[in-house]
């Protein structure tokens, strides 16, 4: 199964808080049969958020967890219509949710995710994500992620 598909990309949606977004991430993953338990996943995401904010001042938050409820390594991309507050940052517009199973993890998947994380520090890459018009275009932008 691919890590990111068009069904996992939502562009220009209206969510106003971190809490709404985390709930929405879990809904998307349930709908795509990538997790078993919405509420366990949400609890695990918050557990990670409590250790340290996953927004790092680049306009992007990366809520993530390695959770028993995750069936398949998945990336969910949400681009918001309006910037929101995410802990101390006030300008978060892109959310990359990264979800990794606890067992049977494919090391290749972890490598793909580390490559994505590295790309996020590149301003040009972030600007392209803000410009894409459709989930299809966005997926193509992230294509490297699905290459094995």
């Amino acid at each position: 199964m691919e890590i990111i598909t068009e069904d996992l990309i939502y562009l220009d949606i209206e969510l106003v808080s971190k809490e709404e977004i985390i709930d929405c991430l879990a809904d998307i993953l349930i709908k795509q049969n990538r997790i078993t338990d919405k509420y366990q996943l949400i609890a695990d995401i918050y557990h990670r958020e409590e250790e340290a904010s996953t927004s790092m001042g680049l306009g992007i938050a990366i809520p993530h967890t390695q959770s028993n409820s995750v069936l398949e390594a998945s990336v969910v991309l949400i681009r918001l219509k309006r910037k929101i507050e995410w802990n101390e940052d006030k300008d978060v517009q892109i959310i990359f949710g990264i979800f990794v199973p606890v067992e049977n993890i494919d090391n290749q998947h972890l490598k793909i995710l580390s490559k994505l994380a590295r790309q996020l520090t590149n301003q040009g890459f972030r600007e392209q994500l803000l410009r894409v018009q459709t989930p299809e275009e966005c997926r193509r932008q992230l294509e490297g992620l699905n290459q094995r």
Partner: protein
Amino acid sequence: MKKIIGVCACPAGIAHTYMAAENLENLAKKRGYQVKIETNGSSGVENSLTDKDIIEADYVIIAADTRVEMERFRGKKLIEVSVSDAIRDGEKIFSQLDADKLDIY
């Protein structure tokens, strides 16, 4: 050319470890340093620092929110920061390096 080595590590080891490493590598190259950053992430230790790397290094940057094997850096000029600092305030770390203001570990 001066050489920087470093270690990045965070609790989940899925995202921020690698963002910090990428940022430090890019800033170092931009400033003309030779650079090698070890990542301690969920897929294990990558780009491991060798004894030779450590001997050759002028500066060591530790950007970690978890425990890192530190004994190997005894006697080196070293700076310890959080992963968040390495991503948000990389420039600040390098201004301390550029001024050669690091304490010896």
